[in-house]
């Protein structure tokens, strides 16, 4: 009616309608389902019926998309650092300092392709590293695991190998107790919400804030379901140093342990269960191993210290009486535990993260995990959707042709036959150690490989025998300063003479893009074609759509032409490869639009909707199963009942069952192991990851006395509420207007840090004052939000500022962009792992601009 054309797109925060007029985006809105869309499911519980509203709910970052497309920070043409001469003086030490000049695409592509060739010629395989971040703009074709991986494989590259940052404590810890390596040590989703709604009598959110994180990618889908539990009056507990958004909305009991002390709290609860006979003895006897040893540890028979509620009180700050009350309530009621939803949680990304996640699994084992009402996940996951309908997730490899480093081999490759690709360079650099690899020339890492429980124990080294060291970096995106531990290390790495060439392919001029020699401007997903399923990650998060109320497959229209001279990532890769004679191998003659059609054809969509209709409407809703009998069976029920596994997930592998196929778990005994055999075999004497999960205080907590004397505040750096990590932060986007995200002071939008009013008063800090947060690793200027949502002694900031802006002061460098990861430790959570640990000690003071003025 108003002359706009309605397109559809998909984001990390849900799908959107995009209304365009005269080639300009007018508005973006959530999608309301219409009468033609499939019906919604209904759950019957406690004498009532529950049906979700017919909308695809979205997160704040999704609704800020338009402002990001039109951001002044968009890279609109290729650029070169002014003092970079590919044939002469490169001025490597000026990376991050010097300005840029516009160059033509021809010049940019010539430089990049010539440097790639030179690397091979001069140094041999491995000289070029490709480094991407974890979260791409949505879509199966454009995703880094798709087009970028295909590009990399056709060239050969040193892989910058990520650590399992989302799941650290689960992968390096919890997994050894129960298996599930293909889910990185976290549990599966099936039937959970239904089980919770029908049976749960207590909800324990532990390090869990789904109102903020939406699980991942799931808009606000869980919110309505959580409100059902509030309306039903199911008792609710939140265990978090922060009075988080979920606790604020749902109410209930807030228990606030000091950061990274949770394992002590968990052990005291288990102690009470043992003391008062409040655990499932039959389950423990028949479904677990090693309990006696664990019980003896709890009771103190083993080390002379009983892990009583009184024992944990000075460590966690939680009153013993509260712990006892919680233990009794939990021990007598069917309980859904939500550790970061199920298998995430900032507590798993702290120094004690492995211990904590391990405790979560042991607690479930003591409470009959899998029996009705006893499960992990609450209302966030496990809606009754049809999981038999096939559509590939983003981790299923897209167009990459890569069978080893994606889940392509599972279905995608056979469903959409395409030219296979493989990277002949076996050399890798662990992402968290990239700076050391460049600056020191060597480093060691531990594998993240979901195939087995054991792969993680084999260390790997950089450089790898036979390959060249890295002399060129192909950086895709630019989030490191915001998201990597002690990220200030990257400055030195970028300025190291051995790194002869850095190209950055980014949408925005932010973060690390400013450390490149040549910048290639990519367009946003609204300016190119793609296709994808909402919240369909695939791979390690198999059936993660189970967080949604409706399964939605979305055509991601090219809504507008690319702005300026920006191009799709796909086209940039194609242009480079064309200069190397590899254009046809890469594209198979297809445009990104043609690839979308191939993905469509490979899925179950053509059975339901024509390509033309799909293009026109923009999305398809998969009907839910027609009857309750067809719902996926509740996760772990089979295990509790001693039956063959009936969860529709492709793991464990057939060889990984201890005895009979389908019976039991992936662990050596096939049971939940209180003292895991895999740890006993591989690190029996480890002091940081002992097989017996004893409490080891944080190496940067209140017990590190001399550090505390200088840096008395414990900083929790959790995920950002309104942005998706760095994505959608800063860049003059709409989120700058959200007062809990950034606050303008003298015109500059500062990152927000949450400080208890008492701590603030003692330091003379008032609401929205600028503050300097610092420790030995760095200093960041933020704006203070005085809020008792954190206890005295604790401050909360979010990781993942997209902005980094170092200012030289008389007392060293200060970042005013808000990258709190400049302050976190790069020490591994536990020796023998690659896990990051993000809570740290800091001090805060009012930002004294005059006192710091450059001399």
């Amino acid at each position, binding site marked *: *009616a*108003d002359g706009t054309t309605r397109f559809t797109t998909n984001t990390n925060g849900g799908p959107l309608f995009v209304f365009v007029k005269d080639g300009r985006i*007018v*508005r*973006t*809105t*959530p999608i*309301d389902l219409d009468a033609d869309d499939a019906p919604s499911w209904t759950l019957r519980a406690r004498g009532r019926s529950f049906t979700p*509203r017919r*909308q695809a*709910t*979205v*997160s*704040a970052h999704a*609704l*800020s998309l*338009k*402002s990001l497309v*039109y951001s002044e920070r968009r890279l609109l043409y290729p650029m070169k650092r002014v003092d970079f001469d590919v044939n002469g003086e490169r001025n490597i030490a000026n990376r991050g300092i010097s300005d840029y000049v516009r160059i033509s695409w021809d010049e940019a592509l010539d430089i990049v392709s010539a440097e790639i060739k030179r690397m091979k010629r001069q140094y041999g395989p491995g000289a070029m590293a490709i480094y991407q971040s974890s979260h791409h703009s949505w879509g199966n074709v454009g995703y880094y695991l798709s087009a970028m991986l295909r590009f990399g494989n056709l060239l050969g590259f040193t892989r910058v190998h990520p650590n399992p940052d989302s799941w650290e404590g689960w992968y390096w810890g919890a997994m050894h107790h129960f298996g599930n390596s293909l889910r990185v040590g976290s549990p599966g989703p099936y039937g959970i919400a239904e089980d919770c709604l029908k049976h749960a009598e207590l909800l324990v959110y532990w390090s869990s804030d789904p*109102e903020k994180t939406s699980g991942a990618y799931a*808009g*606000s889908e869980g*919110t*309505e379901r959580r*409100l059902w539990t509030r309306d039903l009056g199911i*008792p609710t507990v939140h265990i978090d140093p922060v*009075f988080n*958004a979920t606790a*604020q*909305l749902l*109410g209930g*009991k*807030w*228990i*606030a342990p000091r950061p990274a002390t949770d394992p002590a709290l968990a052990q005291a609860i288990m102690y009470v269960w043992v003391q008062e006979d409040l655990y499932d003895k039959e389950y423990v006897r028949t479904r677990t191993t090693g309990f006696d040893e664990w019980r003896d540890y709890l009771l103190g028979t083993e080390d002379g210290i009983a892990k009583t*509620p*009184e024992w944990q009180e000075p460590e966690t700050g939680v*009153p*013993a*009486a*509260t712990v*006892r*009350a*919680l233990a*009794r*309530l939990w021990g007598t009621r069917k309980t859904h535990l939500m550790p970061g939803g199920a298998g995430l949680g900032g507590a798993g990304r702290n120094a004690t993260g492995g211990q904590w996640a391990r405790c979560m699994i042991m607690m479930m084992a003591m409470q009959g995990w899998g029996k009705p009402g006893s499960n992990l996940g609450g209302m966030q996951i496990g809606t009754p959707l049809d999981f038999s309908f096939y559509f590939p997730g983003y981790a299923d490899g897209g167009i990459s042709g890569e069978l080893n480093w994606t889940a392509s081999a599972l279905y995608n490759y056979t469903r959409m036959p395409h030219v296979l690709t493989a990277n002949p360079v076996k050399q890798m650099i662990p992402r968290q150690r990239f700076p050391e690899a460049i600056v020191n020339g060597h480093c060691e890492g531990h594998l993240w490989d979901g195939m087995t429980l054991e792969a993680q124990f084999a260390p790997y080294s950089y450089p790898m025998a036979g390959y060249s060291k890295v002399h060129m970096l192909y950086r895709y995106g630019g989030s490191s300063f915001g998201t990597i531990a002690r990220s200030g290390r990257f400055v030195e790495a970028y300025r190291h003479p051995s790194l002869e060439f850095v190209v950055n392919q980014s949408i925005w001029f932010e973060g690390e893009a400013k450390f490149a020699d040549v910048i290639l401007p990519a367009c946003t997903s609204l300016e190119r074609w793609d296709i994808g399923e909402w919240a369909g990650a695939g791979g390690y998060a198999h059936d993660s759509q189970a967080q949604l109320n409706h399964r939605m497959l979305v055509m991601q229209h090219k809504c507008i032409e690319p702005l300026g001279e920006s191009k799709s990532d796909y086209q940039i890769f194609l242009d480079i490869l064309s200069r190397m004679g590899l254009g046809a191998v890469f594209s198979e003659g297809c445009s990104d639009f043609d690839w979308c059609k191939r993905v469509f054809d490979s899925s179950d969509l053509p059975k339901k909707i024509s390509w033309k209709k799909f293009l026109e409407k923009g999305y398809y809703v998969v009907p839910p199963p027609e009857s309750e009998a067809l719902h996926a069976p509740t996760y772990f029920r089979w295990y509790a009942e001693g039956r063959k596994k009936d969860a529709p997930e492709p793991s464990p592998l057939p060889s990984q069952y201890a005895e009979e196929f389908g019976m039991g778990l992936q662990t050596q005994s096939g049971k939940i192991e209180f003292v895991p055999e895999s740890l006993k075999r591989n690190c029996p004497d480890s002091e940081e990851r002992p097989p017996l999960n004893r409490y080891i205080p944080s190496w940067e907590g209140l017990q590190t006395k001399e550090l505390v004397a200088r840096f008395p505040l414990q900083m929790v750096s959790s995920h950002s509420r*309104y942005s998706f990590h760095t994505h959608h932060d800063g860049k*003059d986007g*709409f*989120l*700058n*207007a*959200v*007062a*809990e995200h950034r606050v*303008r002071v003298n015109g500059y939008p500062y990152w927000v840090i949450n400080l208890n*009013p008492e701590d603030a008063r003692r330091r003379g800090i008032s609401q929205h004052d600028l503050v300097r947060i610092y420790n030995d690793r760095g200093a960041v200027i933020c704006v203070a939000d005085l*809020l*008792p*949502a954190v206890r005295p002694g604790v401050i909360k900031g979010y990781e993942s500022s997209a902005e980094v802006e170092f200012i030289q002061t008389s007392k060293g460098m200060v970042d005013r962009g808000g990258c709190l990861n400049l302050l976190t430790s790069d020490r591994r959570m536990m020796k023998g792992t690659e896990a990051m640990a993000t809570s740290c000690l800091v001090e805060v003071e009012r930002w004294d601009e005059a006192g710091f003025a450059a001399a």
Partner: protein
Amino acid sequence: MEKWNLVVDVAQCNNCANCTLASLDEHVGNDFPGYAAAQSKDAKPLIDIRRNVRGTDEHMDISYMPTMCNHCDRPRCAEGADGAVVKRADGIVLIDPYKAKGRRDLVGKCPHGAIQWNEEQQLPQIWIFDAHLLDAGWQEPRCQQACPTGAFRALKVSDEHMQALVREEKLEVSRADLGTAPRVYYKNLQRMNRRFIAGSVVTMNGGTQDCLPGCTVTLLLNGAQVARTLTDWFGDFKIDGLPDQSLSYTLVLEHAEHASVQMTVQTDTGGTSIDIVALIPAAIQAAA
């Protein structure tokens, strides 16, 4: 005559900011002639979410109240505006983007603080209820469409119907005392404008303490009972909905097996927590 009203449920709001962002998405860079001129990129949002923190400890709560132009029936902004402010027959208030050019004075006229000054356009601006969309057939404003919790309900009903709803659902308006007769109503506003008293009760159990559930908590004001409740599993209680003023109450804690405790509690702030109370078991009391 059916007119527009907006009902906002404070207890449903999770502070996701979608309403604020939807309003920016709609108006930044978009001109809707006759309705509103484009907002500038760095504009203050026309839907502003107010935060209310009550209490400072584990009993605290934090609530959010989306605020915007109230589309008042006695719009103070229209006084002396020389026709720049239009009150439509359907209840919606618009600031005419043509006639209001340069009228910075209008910003100060709104006692609710709902008018933003657009420096680029030299225009005072309000949230226009998305009248341009409603006129084009939309059934709801964008904030409602984007809200994942159903916190908003835009209703086009007669004033009589609306008043019946106000009584039925105990709706309130923001700052009724200003007398502007808002058409934006709030549900569960007590989380923004009432006070609470909360506490935790424990019992001595040998050498250790235990939370005491089922303890009767009675609150009295000048000798008259104001509220009565029981402590929960954690020995916690919370008495909400108290008037927004500093009053001196008497709090009585009673439990069959314990000696009672009585104390005076002053409500100086939105949320008052008493220190943890340890009730002495009657048996011990008797022995002493």
